[in-house]
């Protein structure tokens, strides 16, 4: 038989099998796995492309230098002497006002020449015609984004109060390089001319201002400048090229991608169980055909090759269908996450499709090849003696092969060795535990004896489950994981949020005020007094960078932990105090006794993150001058209190004479919004942050992300059902035989069905029980470790999961057996017992 003949025969066999429904379940399992993977693959590909496209013009320059303090003149001079174009900008949050209304706004004040790269697009009104411009707004005018425009209901020509200045709205910005927004919604934005900043009075000592220097030019000159600048920047100054743009957005989206990928991988692993079951059944059903082929002179290698080809074709075909479903599903995912990702996503590229097909083939190969090898070994004598050549089970090599296939898939999809290994370990542990539990539950069920006519169906159901104990345990575990995921993401999620919200007192501070200048503290106190409101406590705040621990210089690269890196990279907000804050608790060491102590108190969580302990000497750089002090206490802070809290508090003398601003929080009842407008009018430089709004936004983001993950778990449930149906298909002959025997003995249709119903209902109920237990444990862990709220759990997830699982799976299982009565009992007995 030549190659072409083999392919033709393989195709014909596949076609016959497909028509007889033989390969349907095998294909369905592969389709589900591939669809899950490609949904995530297509989606992340779109996001990555969007990021890549944006980063080209993201910076508005080839290189930027930024700092929390004014940049030294040398940086600009050196760039100009190197023949580079230069411009600069200031970026800061501030309140802006229109009439009686005010809003916290992200302001960027740009000098002439901005942007050096990319372009700005502006329009005269919302949804008006866009035009590209290459200049900053003229002095005396501002451009606003759509959010600020709608927030204040502005038209071009209106005036806007920015600090002490009234500036005219000249245009609506529709596209802006170097934008803080892009992927995540944040503050409304305003673009103004740098020449107007001084008059607003908004930039003062200790204000939160980012100073940015934009540089552009020929690649060689830019590279040379970058190399020079790298040697001269201080730790608090950042150099950013196009490549480094938006690391925080990138890492946030990558993380989201991991979670979605994890959800998809759960489906793949469960689908693998279905593939394994289906492949085994396939092999058993093809033993006779193989024996006949061997009898007709086919060599062992030919038979193996023929079926390997058969499976390859199947893998590619099912993979292609899975890709098509994945392509459709990722659109739904994109729509679900659309509000969180405020950017148009380009269409996906084709690579995830290729990955999907490869994954489908690998999955089939890993789980079907070992039993396939058995097909080649079927002796021709089987045509005479049917007991010969039955597959001997996977064997050690087979299991190793399957484990390698699934391990390879997980590691490949996780794209990160450590994460991949964690996932694999987690999967293995979860699978082993749930299979063990399922097995134990089945054993326990066997001891339950219900006698009498009413119990007969259940007893036979249990007897069947126990006989197919391994397959039953696999089904219970696979379905349990699917149900657990759905329970956690629906019931438990809502419940946890409710518990968390219940712990929030209604009079919790809902506004933070920052950038209070020392000279404004008294006046601000008077402002609150005049309105009969409680005096807010004002905390001093000094910004300093951690430069050394115990005399050793620290840099972000010293830490493996992302959060630790960020903390070291940024400036800390330091405060001072005579006595510990009332809602803090000293958990180690003791508070200082004199104001002059050279001592620090550190929040215990951050001490853990940075690896700090009592007695460590920390050196901080505050506006160029350094001080060193020793940690003498660790504090526990209740972050949920929404009060002002600091990671690091110093003894008062340490921070005297440093540039300081004050911060406070207070509760503004909804009916007193007028007071907020007064506050902004009287103190234009203050930044008032609406915590409730921020919380609502964070929660919306969380909801959308959880929604997306939940959507992915539908694939998991589908994979669980595929396992169920494959297992049913694998035992269909037995079930038809048993049904026939029972009917011979006079059982009515309903009686036969109720035995099957009992069996499936038990599988579903056990899976639901397992899922409810796992989801409850997960809920308690989340409540205790993450949200720090007391969690009582939802008692009704138990009955709901058990009843829902039982009925759902029973209905689905009976659907798989609708042909149970298709043939008269005698025919069935002859067919199945021959």
């Amino acid at each position, binding site marked *: 038989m030549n190659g072409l003949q083999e392919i033709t025969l393989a195709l014909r066999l596949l076609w016959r099998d497909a028509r007889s429904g033989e390969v349907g379940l095998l294909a369905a399992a592969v389709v589900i796995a591939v669809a899950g993977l490609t949904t995530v693959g297509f989606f992340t590909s779109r996001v990555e492309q969007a990021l890549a496209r944006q980063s080209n013009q993201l910076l508005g320059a080839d290189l930027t230098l930024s700092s929390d303090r004014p940049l030294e003149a040398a940086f600009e001079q050196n760039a100009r002497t190197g023949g580079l174009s230069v411009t600069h900008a200031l970026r800061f949050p501030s309140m802006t006002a229109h009439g009686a209304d005010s809003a916290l706004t992200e302001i960027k004040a740009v000098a002439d020449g901005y942007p050096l790269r990319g372009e700005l697009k502006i329009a005269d009104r919302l949804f008006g015609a866009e035009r590209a411009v290459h200049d900053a707004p003229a002095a005396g005018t501002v451009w606003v984004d759509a959010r600020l425009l709608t927030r204040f209901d502005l038209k071009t020509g209106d005036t806007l109060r920015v600090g002490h200045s009234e500036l005219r709205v000249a245009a609506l910005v529709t596209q802006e390089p170097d934008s803080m927004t892009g992927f995540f919604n944040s503050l409304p934005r305003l673009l103004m001319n740098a020449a107007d900043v001084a008059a607003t009075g908004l930039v003062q000592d200790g204000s939160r201002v980012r100073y940015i220097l934009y540089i552009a030019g020929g690649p060689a000159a830019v590279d040379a400048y970058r190399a020079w600048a790298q040697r001269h920047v201080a730790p608090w100054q950042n150099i950013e090229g196009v490549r480094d743009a938006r690391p925080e957005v990138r890492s946030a989206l990558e993380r989201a991608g991991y979670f979605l990928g994890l959800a998809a991988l759960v489906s793949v692993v469960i689908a693998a169980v279905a593939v394994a079951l289906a492949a085994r059944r396939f092999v058993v059903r093809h033993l006779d055909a193989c024996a006949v082929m061997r009898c007709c002179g086919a060599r062992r290698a030919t038979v193996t090759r023929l079926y390997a080809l058969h499976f390859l074709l199947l893998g590619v075909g099912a993979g292609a269908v899975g890709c098509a479903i994945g392509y459709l599903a990722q659109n739904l995912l994109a729509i679900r996450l659309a509000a969180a990702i405020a950017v148009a996503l380009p269409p996906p590229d084709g690579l995830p499709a290729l990955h999907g097909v490869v994954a489908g083939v690998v999955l089939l190969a890993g789980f079907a090849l070992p039993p396939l090898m058995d097909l080649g070994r079927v002796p021709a004598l089987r045509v005479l003696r049917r007991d010969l050549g039955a597959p001997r089970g996977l064997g050690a090599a087979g299991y190793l092969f399957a484990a390698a296939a699934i391990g390879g898939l997980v590691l490949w999809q996780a794209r990160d060795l450590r994460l991949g290994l964690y996932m694999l370990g987690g999967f293995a542990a979860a699978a082993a535990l749930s299979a063990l539990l399922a097995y134990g539950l089945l054993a326990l069920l066997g001891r339950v004896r219900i006698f009498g006519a009413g119990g007969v169906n259940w007893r*036979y159901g249990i007897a069947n489950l126990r006989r197919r104990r391994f397959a039953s345990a696999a089904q219970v575990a696979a379905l349990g994981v699917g149900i657990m995921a759905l329970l956690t993401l629906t019931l438990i999620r809502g419940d946890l949020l409710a518990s968390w919200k219940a712990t929030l007192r209604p009079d919790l501070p809902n506004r933070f005020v920052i950038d209070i200048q020392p000279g404004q503290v008294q006046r601000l106190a008077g402002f609150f007094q005049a309105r009969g409101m409680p005096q807010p406590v004002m905390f001093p705040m000094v910004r300093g960078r951690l430069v050394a621990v115990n005399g050793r210089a620290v840099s972000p690269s010293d830490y493996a932990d992302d959060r630790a890196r960020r903390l070291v990279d940024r400036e800390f907000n330091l405060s001072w105090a005579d006595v510990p804050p009332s809602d803090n608790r000293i958990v180690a060491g003791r508070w200082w006794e004199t104001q002059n102590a050279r001592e620090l108190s550190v929040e215990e969580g951050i001490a853990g993150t940075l690896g700090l302990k009592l007695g460590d000497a920390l050196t901080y750089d505050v506006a160029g001058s350094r001080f060193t002090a020793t940690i003498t206490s660790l504090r526990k802070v209740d972050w949920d209190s929404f009060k002002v809290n600091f990671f690091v508090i110093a003894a008062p003398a340490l921070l005297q004479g440093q540039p300081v601003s004050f911060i406070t929080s207070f509760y503004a009842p909804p009916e007193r919004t007028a007071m907020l407008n007064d506050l902004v009018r009287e103190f234009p430089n203050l930044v008032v942050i609406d915590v409730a709004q921020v919380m609502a936004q964070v929660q919306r983001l969380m909801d959308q992300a959880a929604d997306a993950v939940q959507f992915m778990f539908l694939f998991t449930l589908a994979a669980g059902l595929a396992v169920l149906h494959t297992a049913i298909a694998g035992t269909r002959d037995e079930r038809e035989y048993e049904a026939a*025997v*029972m009917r*011979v*003995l*006079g059982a009515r*249709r*309903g*009686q036969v069905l109720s035995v099957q119903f009992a069996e499936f209902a038990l599988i579903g109920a056990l899976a639901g029980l397992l899922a409810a237990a796992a989801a409850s444990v997960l809920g308690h862990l989340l409540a205790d470790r993450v949200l720090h709220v007391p969690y009582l759990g939802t008692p009704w997830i138990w009955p709901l999961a058990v009843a829902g699982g039982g009925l759902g799976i029973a209905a689905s299982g009976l659907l798989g057996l609708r042909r149970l009565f298709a043939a*008269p009992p005698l025919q069935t007995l002859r067919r199945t017992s021959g």
Partner: protein
Amino acid sequence: MRAIALAKQIRSGDARLDILSDVSFDVARSEAVAIVGASGSGKSTLLGLLAGLDTPSAGRVLLDGVDLFALDEDGRAALRARLVGFVFQSFQLLPSLTALENAMLPLELAGIAEARRQAQQMLERVGLAERCNHYPNQLSGGEQQRVAIARAFVGTPGLLLADEPTGNLDAASGAQVIELMFELNREFGTTLLLVTHDEALAQRCVRRLRLVAGWLQPGDA
């Protein structure tokens, strides 16, 4: 029991295959009748039709005066539960149930409360008191067939249908099973209708019906 002009054909494409043609006979209460014939003569098909396990192409079967094929599938099942016991060549025990549970099955399906006690007594009667909690795969062929006989007689059916009951057994076990069947036939006054190609077994019956290529041959009784 009465069979009237029973016929069974199957179609395969354009071809028509006659398995049974115009078979009519009566069996009196408590009578033992053997249906004999070569392989493929239609014996087992006839037995299936008599029990309502398959539907004929033409003809009727009256069981205790009831027209079997005037009933629907569930009606026939209910009639079987009340009147008919079965013994098969390949035993047809349910592998997930113990010997006792297999024997209990017809009683439980009929909703009889004392299923366990009656089944236990019947297993004692067939000499398997010690094997109640064994599964079919733990029993020898002869023992399995005795469980099947216990299951067939436990509901004290009026009619026992046996399809080559010794076909899968060695001579000694076969003889034991036959003895048991005839003993019980006498004990319970059950009508016995058995399909066999074992002439010795057939000779023990009061009457023999011979099938040749689907036609009932006259005058052998």
